[in-house]
C-alpha cells in the first residue's frame, strides 16, 4: 500500500508540473492579449515620431491632439448616429421578426417546421461575399442603396439566420407546461407567445447582443451599399480613418481612433460579457 502511495505521488508530481506549464501558457496568452490592448491604448497617447522607437515607453506627453484628430476624422457624431440607427434598428427589427419565427418554429409543431429550421440555419453558411453582388444590384433597383434603410434591411437579412438559430435553442428549452397552462386559461396563440416571450428574455438579450456586436464591427456591407459621407457607419469610418492616417503617417491618430471605437465595446463587454458568452453557448450547445 505504501509503495502504491509513493508511486502515485510521483505521478502526481508530474501531473502537477504539467499543469503548471499549462497554466503558465494560459496566463501568457492572456497577458499577451492584454498587452496588445494596453499597447494600443498607450500608443494612442504618444507622438508620431516616437511611437515606434521605444515600443514600451510610457507616453512622454499625453497627446490629446491625437484624439481630436481622430474624433474629427471619424466624424464621430455622424458615424455613431448612423451606426446606432442601422445597428440598433437592424438588431431590434431582427429580434422583432426572429423571435416570433423561432417561437413558431419550435413551439407550433406544424408540419414542415423542422425543414424550415434547417433552411434558416442554411443562411448562416452563406458568406456575405456570395450575395453582395446581386444584393447590391437588387437594392439599387428599389432605390435602397446608399440608404440607411437599405443597410438596416440588409443587416436584418444577414442577422436573421443566426438569431433564429440561437433563439430556437432558447425556445426549445422552455417548459411546455407553461404554454399549456396559458392555453388552459384561454389564451390564444398570440397571447401564448407573449407569455412565453419574457421567459426567453435571457436568450433574446444574448442574441441581440451578439447580433449587435457583429453588426457594429461590420464594414463590408456598409462600404459597398452606402458611399455618402453622411451615411457612413463607424466601421467604415474607422476604415477610412485607417486610410487617411496611414497616408499621412499619423499612426498615433490611428491608434486614437481605434481606442475611441474600442471604448464603448470595452465598457459594454466588461458589463455584459457573461450574457454575450452565455447566449452564444446556449445556441451552440442546445
Amino acid at each position, binding site marked *: 500500500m505504501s509503495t502504491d502511495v509513493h508511486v502515485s505521488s510521483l505521478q502526481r508530481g508530474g501531473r502537477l508540473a504539467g499543469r503548471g506549464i499549462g497554466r503558465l501558457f494560459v496566463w501568457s496568452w492572456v497577458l499577451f492579449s492584454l498587452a496588445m490592448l494596453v499597447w494600443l491604448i498607450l500608443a494612442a497617447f504618444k507622438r508620431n515620431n516616437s511611437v515606434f522607437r521605444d515600443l514600451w515607453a510610457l507616453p512622454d506627453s499625453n497627446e490629446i491632439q491625437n484624439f481630436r484628430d481622430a474624433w474629427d476624422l471619424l466624424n464621430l457624431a455622424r458615424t455613431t448616429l448612423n451606426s446606432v440607427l442601422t445597428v440598433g434598428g437592424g438588431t431590434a427589427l431582427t429580434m422583432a421578426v426572429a423571435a416570433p419565427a423561432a417561437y413558431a418554429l419550435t413551439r407550433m409543431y406544424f408540419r414542415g417546421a423542422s425543414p424550415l429550421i434547417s433552411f434558416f440555419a442554411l443562411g448562416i453558411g452563406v458568406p456575405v461575399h456570395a450575395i453582395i453582388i446581386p444584393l447590391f444590384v437588387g437594392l439599387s433597383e428599389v432605390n435602397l442603396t446608399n440608404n440607411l434603410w437599405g443597410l438596416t434591411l440588409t443587416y436584418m437579412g444577414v442577422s436573421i439566420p443566426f438569431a433564429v438559430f440561437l433563439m430556437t435553442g432558447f425556445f426549445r428549452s422552455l*417548459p411546455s*407546461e*407553461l404554454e*399549456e*397552462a*396559458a*392555453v*388552459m*386559461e*384561454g*389564451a*390564444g396563440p398570440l*397571447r401564448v407567445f407573449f*407569455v412565453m416571450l*419574457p*421567459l426567453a*428574455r435571457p436568450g433574446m438579450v444574448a442574441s441581440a447582443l451578439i447580433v449587435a456586436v457583429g453588426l457594429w464591427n461590420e464594414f463590408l456591407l456598409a462600404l459597398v451599399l452606402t458611399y455618402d459621407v453622411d451615411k457612413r457607419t463607424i466601421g467604415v469610418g474607422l476604415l477610412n480613418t485607417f486610410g487617411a492616417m496611414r497616408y499621412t503617417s499619423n499612426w498615433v491618430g490611428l491608434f486614437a481612433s481605434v481606442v475611441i471605437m474600442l471604448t464603448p465595446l470595452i465598457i459594454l463587454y466588461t458589463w455584459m460579457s457573461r450574457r454575450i458568452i452565455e447566449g452564444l453557448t446556449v445556441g451552440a450547445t442546445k
Partner: protein
Amino acid sequence: MASISLHAVTKRFDDIGPPALSEVDLEIEDGEFIVLVGPSGCGKTTLLRIVAGLETATTGELLIGGSDISGVPAGDRNIAMVFQNYALFPHLTVAENIGFGLKIRGTSKAERRTTVERVASLLGLSPYLERRPGELSGGQRQRVAMGRAIVRQPAAFLMDEPLSNLDAKLRVEMRAEISRMQRRLNATTIYVTHDQTEAMTMGDRVVVLNKGVVQQIASPADLYRYPANAFVAQFIGAPTMNMLVGSIAGGRLVVGTAQLKVPERFESADGPVLVGARPEHVHIGDRGIGHLGGHVVLVEHLGKEVQVHLEIDVPLDIDDAHGDASEAFVATVDPSEAPVEGSDVDIVLDLDQVHLFDRDSGLTLTRP
C-alpha cells in the same frame, strides 16, 4: 361544476403497439373527487390531457356537464389544471399568476383584484401576493397553482401528480389541504398520483388503470378489501400483496405441499388459482403449526413493525411490471414476533383474509 363522462375513449399515439388508452368508460359525478392511479406509462396523464383538451381522443366521446365537447378547444372548456410542477409564470407575481385566467377573459381590473385577494386569503397567500414564484417555497407554489385553478370557478379540476415534487413532510400536509379545499369548493376533480397513500386517502373513488385499460373503479376501502383482479390486488397496498400459485381441486386449496381448507366464500371455485395474501395477513409460527415452510432471508425492523422477507418453496406470481424482481415473500409482523434471520419458519396464511384469483384471467373469485 359539472359531471364528466368518458364513453369508450381510445387514444393512439402511433399506429403500432397498444393504444395509450383503450375503451375507457368513466362517469364522474358533479363534485366527485376521483383519483387516478396506475403504473408509470399506463395512460393517466393522457386521460387527464384528453379531458383538458390538450390532447384529442382518437375515438370515443367526452361529455362535460352532459354535452359533448370534443370539438371545444382547451381554453373554452372551463376546466382548470394543476400541473405537476405547477407551471407558474416565473415573470408574474403571485397575484398576476392567480389572476392570469381572469385577465385573459377580460375581467375588469377592480373585479380581478378583489377576486384574487379573496382566493389568496382563502389559501393563506395574502402576504405573498407581490412575490414571484421564485421567491416562494414549494408548498406556497403549490397553493398558488391551486389559486390559479380555483379563481375562475371552473367546471372541474384536473391535477397531475401535484404533490410529487414536494418533500415527504410537506406532501402529507398538502394532501390534507387539497382534500379540505376540494370539499369546501365541492368541485369535480380528477387527481392523478402514483402515491399509494394519496390514492387511498384523497378520493371518493379510485380508478386503477393498467396499460390504458381501466382495471377497477371503487372507493379506496373497497379497492383494498375487494380488489377486482390480481393486478389491482398487487398494485394497491404496500408492501405488495404476496401472490402464490395454487389450485382448487376437490374442495381443497392446494398451495405447494400444503392442502388447505377452502374458505366458505370460495367454495364454488375450481381449477388453477392465484392465492393473494397481504403481508399483514401472513403469520409466522414455529415449525409444525403452519401451512407452508419458509426461510427467513432478511428481517427489516421498521420500528413499530417488522418486515420479514422469506424464501418459500411455492412458486410466486410476480407482478410483471417488475419482472426482474427477486422472488420474495414478505410478512409484516409485530416486533415481538420477529423471527431470526436465516432461520426456517412456518408460515400461516390468514385464510379469512386471503384473496383468490383466476389464474388465467386474473379476475377475483371473491364475491364481496
